[in-house]
Structures are given as structure tokens and as C-alpha cells.
């Protein structure tokens, strides 16, 4: 293949990866920014989204489009409820201690993963795309659903940006993030905000899982990769900067696409991990992170 089409394919692959990654990492970044919790179970919420999408679409086997619509609404809701339960049963009881919650979310990771293994089984199961068509470029063909996934992820990112910067809930959230005690003194129900933010973070991961599942297949171990990439993105972008997270998702996603198409996917992972190390050494707060207060 010539350089032009080769690059086009690399950019397309990178863009899909970047958008889905941005949605996933945004959830992780929100939870860390507001609650100061490093949620190691974040990838499992992604996996739960995909597995629930399989379950919900299989309820309407004759109507893949409506089945998928059901999944895109239903899966995040269920995952959100699981997250609220995890918050009430585990995180709140640990008083949101940063160290304790890391260990607790590692436990949560295994509980969710093994529960899915027990109930859903070890198989990888396909989910039919809501709209499937093939875009034929002069040099190669490309999955039409990938463009839909890009569009849906872009809408989600816009909605998240609007929610955080333009709504009252966003204001309360930012106030809690800025100074928890002062916010509480001003009557912000911090506990409620924490539960909502944890659920929101999980729902974003679940939505990313629903969007990706027609491209991959629902499998109980599929949460590990997005977890690793989300951490890379959040560290590079700056742990409490939403703008940084999204920019870093694009840097990592697109460079991953280009490096894996032109060289090898393993090299792409090596470079991303190296970038994390360099950022940690030279800009410990991330490229866009503010100074720690």
C-alpha cells in the first residue's frame, strides 16, 4: 500500500481508538479529580458495559438497532447502580482514604471480573453492530460502524464538557473538587456528590464499552487494556485536568494508531509507557495538571 492510504488507515484507526479512550479516561479522571480515588476497577466497568450490551441486545435478536439502543441506555444505568452500591458499601466506609481505596478497588476489580466469569462464562461473544455497512476507499475497505462510534463518542464528550462547565451539578462538582471542606460548609452534600461522581465515572466507562463491543467481542478479561491505557492517558494529561485527559487521549490514541500501522503495536505500547515515565520524571503533575495545592 502507498504512503497516502497507509497514513489514512493509520489515522482512522487512531481516531477510533482516541475517541473511545477519551470517554473511558474521562471517567477515571473525573473520579480522581473529585474524589481523589485511583479507581483500579475502572476497566471492569468498561467490561461490564460490553457484557451487559451483549445481554441486552440478545433480548431483541431480530432488531439489532433497537437492541443496541436498549444497550446504550440500559447498560450504563445498571453499571451506574453497581457503582453507587460499591460507593456506599466500600468506599464510603473507608472514608475515601486514598491508599485504602486503591486496595479496595483492586478487590472490586477481582469481584466484578470473577462474578462475570461465573455468571456470563469465559466465552467471547459477539454483538451485532446497530448499523453495519462497509465504506470502500479506493485502496481498502473500512467498517462503517467505526465512524458511528466516533460520532457517538464525540457527542458524549461534548455532553460531558457541557455538564461539567455549564450546569449546576458541574459547578457543585467543581466546588467539591476545589475544596471539599469549604464546599461542605456552603451546604454542598458532599457524600451525594461523591456517589454521583463515582457512578458517572463508571457510566462513562460502560458507555465506552457499549460503543466498542460491536468491534470486539464481550469477554470477561477485556477490561485490562482500557484500564492500562486510561491510566497512561490520565497520567500524561494531568490527574485532575479534564482538558488534559482529552488531549492526552488523542495524543496516545492517534500515535498508537500510526505507530502500530507503520511499525508494530508492541512498539506503540512501549512508547506510550515510556512517555508515562518521562512525564512522571519531568512534569509529575502531567502535561496540563495544575500545581498540587
Amino acid at each position, binding site marked *: 500500500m502507498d504512503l497516502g492510504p497507509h497514513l489514512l488507515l*493509520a489515522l482512522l484507526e487512531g481516531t477510533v481508538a482516541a475517541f473511545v479512550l477519551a470517554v473511558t479516561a474521562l471517567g477515571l479522571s473525573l473520579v480522581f479529580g473529585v474524589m481523589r480515588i485511583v479507581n483500579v476497577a475502572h476497566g471492569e466497568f468498561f467490561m461490564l458495559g460490553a457484557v451487559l450490551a451483549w445481554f441486552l441486545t440478545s433480548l431483541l435478536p431480530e432488531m439489532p438497532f433497537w437492541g443496541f439502543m436498549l444497550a446504550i441506555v440500559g447498560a450504563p444505568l445498571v453499571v451506574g447502580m453497581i457503582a453507587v452500591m460499591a460507593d456506599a458499601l466500600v468506599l464510603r466506609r473507608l472514608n475515601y482514604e486514598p491508599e485504602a481505596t486503591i486496595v479496595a478497588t483492586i478487590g472490586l476489580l477481582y469481584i466484578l471480573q470473577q462474578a462475570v466469569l461465573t455468571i456470563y462464562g*469465559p466465552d467471547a461473544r459477539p454483538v451485532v453492530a446497530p448499523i453495519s455497512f462497509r465504506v470502500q476507499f479506493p485502496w481498502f475497505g*473500512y467498517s462503517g460502524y467505526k465512524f458511528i462510534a466516533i460520532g457517538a463518542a464525540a457527542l458524549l464528550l461534548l455532553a460531558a464538557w457541557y455538564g461539567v462547565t455549564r450546569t449546576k451539578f458541574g459547578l457543585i462538582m467543581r466546588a467539591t473538587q476545589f475544596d471539599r471542606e469549604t464546599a461542605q460548609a456552603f451546604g454542598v452534600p458532599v457524600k451525594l456528590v461523591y456517589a454521583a461522581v463515582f457512578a458517572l465515572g463508571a457510566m462513562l466507562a460502560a458507555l465506552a464499552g457499549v460503543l466498542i463491543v460491536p*468491534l*470486539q467481542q464481550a*469477554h470477561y478479561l477485556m477490561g485490562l487494556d482500557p484500564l492500562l491505557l486510561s491510566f497512561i492517558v490520565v497520567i500524561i494529561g494531568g490527574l485532575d485536568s479534564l482538558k488534559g485527559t482529552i488531549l492526552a487521549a488523542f495524543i496516545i490514541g492517534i500515535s498508537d494508531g500510526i505507530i502500530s500501522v507503520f511499525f508494530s503495536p508492541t512498539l506503540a505500547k512501549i512508547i506510550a509507557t515510556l512517555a508515562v515515565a518521562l512525564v512522571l520524571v519531568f512534569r509529575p503533575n502531567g502535561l496540563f495538571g495544575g500545581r498540587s495545592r
Partner: protein
Amino acid sequence: MNPKTPTIGGKKNLITRRSAIKKMGAAAGAASALTLAPGFVRYVQAQSSAPIKLGFQVHSTGIGAAYGRWYDRTTQAAVKLINEQGGISGRPIELVSEDDGTDPKRGAEVVEKFASQHQVDLVFGTLFSHVVIGAAPRAGELKMPYFVVSEGYHVASGSLNRYVFQPGITDVRSQVSSMAPWIAGNLGKKVTMIFPDYAFGHDHRDYFSAAIAAQGGSIAALLPIPPTESSYTKYFPQIPSDTEVIYHVMVGPGVLTFVKEMGEHYGSNRPQIFGFVDSLEAVDLASPGLEFLEGTYFWEANPRYAGPNQTAFDKFYREKVGVDANGASVSDPKDISTYSHMFGCWETLYVIKQAIEASGYQGPADKARLIEATEAMTGFSASNEHPQGDKLFDGKRHQCYGHQFISKVEGQKLSVVHQTSIEDGQYENDTDYTKQSL
């Protein structure tokens, strides 16, 4: 994350005490069996009528789970049948299954557990090559006969040890050697290979490259794929445009995605495609996105769809395992079997039976005789015990060799277009496990 037991002063004592308790428990158990189970006369009278304990190392979870499920069903069916027909040397088989998570480290631990905790007579059933390579050395150290059903060339290559056998399924080197003449003669000579980047894929890479070169063909490109990959589109640009044949062999949860993305990439304007059915084991050929495979070719070890040439033996085996004429479970037509691999469990169990009976094996003290009796075998003929067909067995290499099939996708089914002879898959090497000490 298995914390190593710290070696502390009291450890030796502790183990002695534990094993002492275990022995006391065993004695108590034996005593209660004597007094409380008068019906079990044969068990009490002759030690040799106690069950033969077979350790079944199975990939119930992890990337090999689909194979594991069917290896389990096939094994259960064979064990049931053997027990109904009087067991092995008149002793019933007691199957002890352990999941290894398709993980080499856990594989070695499972072998260890079989030896020390379950105290089985032998272990069998391991499939994925990285697990076999991880676990086989431990089996050798423990002097535990280890019958794998893996396809990998690692047994015949001589890289394992005298306790490891593969008598139920032909190895990859032989399989690919027998495919090359047909591919070069019917599809094309410039081949791009897509294969998993670990031992099993490397066997394909090394021996198919050599075999196609021997036919006057050449390799246009080699595309190794990391085993945990979930998206494949990015690899396809590396396929050179003058490729005549794409040769693919993929395993694990991403196989359906792989084939779908290849279809999206090429559409109808594709080179010839030849795959190992591993890329679609446990996957329904009628899945959406697989239409583009129409007219492509697959290697099969055992034809998934019962065609016009189905043998009476295959019919018998299919019925006993519970597989319909389309290669799916009789209870769920969407549950597709791993038909080209799982017969290996069935056949291996009958080889084990034959070896135990020929050696007069009574218990673990006779393991050396069991190994030598297996090495003395020369082949198996097509029968209900060996439904895949005739096989030669090479006692020096611990490996069997059988017929292979090439099938074409027609109407979303596979139909056999060619059957190789056993000679097509022969190769030279100087492996001789019989020279190793027991």
C-alpha cells in the same frame, strides 16, 4: 499472585506433621471403607481394582475457554463409555479435573497439585502450546506421565522430556507440511502468513515457510500478532499487494473480530485465503460478518460438517459426544464445537487405556513400564476408538501422525475438497526420547 511460602525453621516440622495427619486420615478412610462398605468387595480384596485416577488439565477459563469446554465434554463422554465397557484393566476411571486458566504458570502448579494432592496415575489434556511448554518440565521432574492434546511441534521436536506424549493429534509441523503442496498447486505460490506470536504460531511460521519453499513458493510477508490483541485492522496494510494467498491461523477470544476485519478490509477484491480452522473453532460460520469467507479454504483435522464421506466411526463418536451434523451441540445449535481438536482427547484416552493394559500397570511404581509400553506402539487404525482415522505413532518422538483435510466454505458450511495421506505429513528429525533415562 501466589506468595511463596517462606522457608522458616519450623517448616520442616509442619510438613511432617501435616503428612502424618494425612496418612492417619488415609488409614482411617481405609478402615472405614473396610468396615462400612461391605459391598465394595473387589476394592478391598485386590488393590488393582481401585479406580485409575486420571488428572485432566483443562482450560476452563482464560483465552482457551471455548476449547476447554469441548475438551471437557469429549473427555466426559469417552470416560463414561470406557467405564461402561468395563474400565481400564477392569478398573474404573476416576477423572479429576483442574482448571489452569490457560496460563503457563498455573499449568505447572496444576501438574504439581495432581502429583502431590490428588496423587493421580497420569495427567492429560493440555492444549495451548505455551501452557504445555510451561508445565511439561514440571511433569518430567515429578516423573508424571503427561499426555498432551496440543498440536504443537514441541513434543516431536525433542524439546520436552520422556514423560510427555502426544498420541491423539498430529503435530503442526506435519499438518502444515501436508498442506503446502496443495496450496502451491491450487491457490498460489506467494504467501503472506498471519499467525499468533508464540510457540504455536512460530511452528506454523517455521515449518510452513520451509514447506512452501520446497514447493517452489515463497513467503511475501510474515505478520506475527501478539496473543492478547483485540483489533486487527492495523495489521492488514502490511500484507503486500502481490500476495497470492493469505495464510491465517489465529486462536483466542479475538478470532471472530479478526476474520470480520479482514472481510471489511478486502471486501470482494481479495487474494486467495487459506486458514487453519483454529481461526474459527467454536465460531458459527453463519455469524454476521463472515459472509466474505465464502469460497475460501480451511485446514481441518476432523471435518466439522458431516459430509457424504462420513465414516461410521465419526457417526458413533459424534453421537456419544453430543454433536450434530453441523458440528454444534445437539442441545444448542449456536454452541459450536472445536471439532478439529477435541477428538484428540477421545483418542488419547483410548491410547492411555491401551498403554495401561499392555504394560500391566498397577500403580505409580509401574510408571516406567507405562512409558515404555506407550513408546512401543506403532499406530492406531480407524475405529470407534480412533474416529478421526488411521494414525502412525513414532515411539521415539512420542508423536502420532494422521490424515488431514482441506475444506472449502460453501453456503456458510465447510465441505471437504481434499484429504492428505499420512506420508504427505512426514518429515525428518533425530528426536529420540527413549535415550533419556526414566
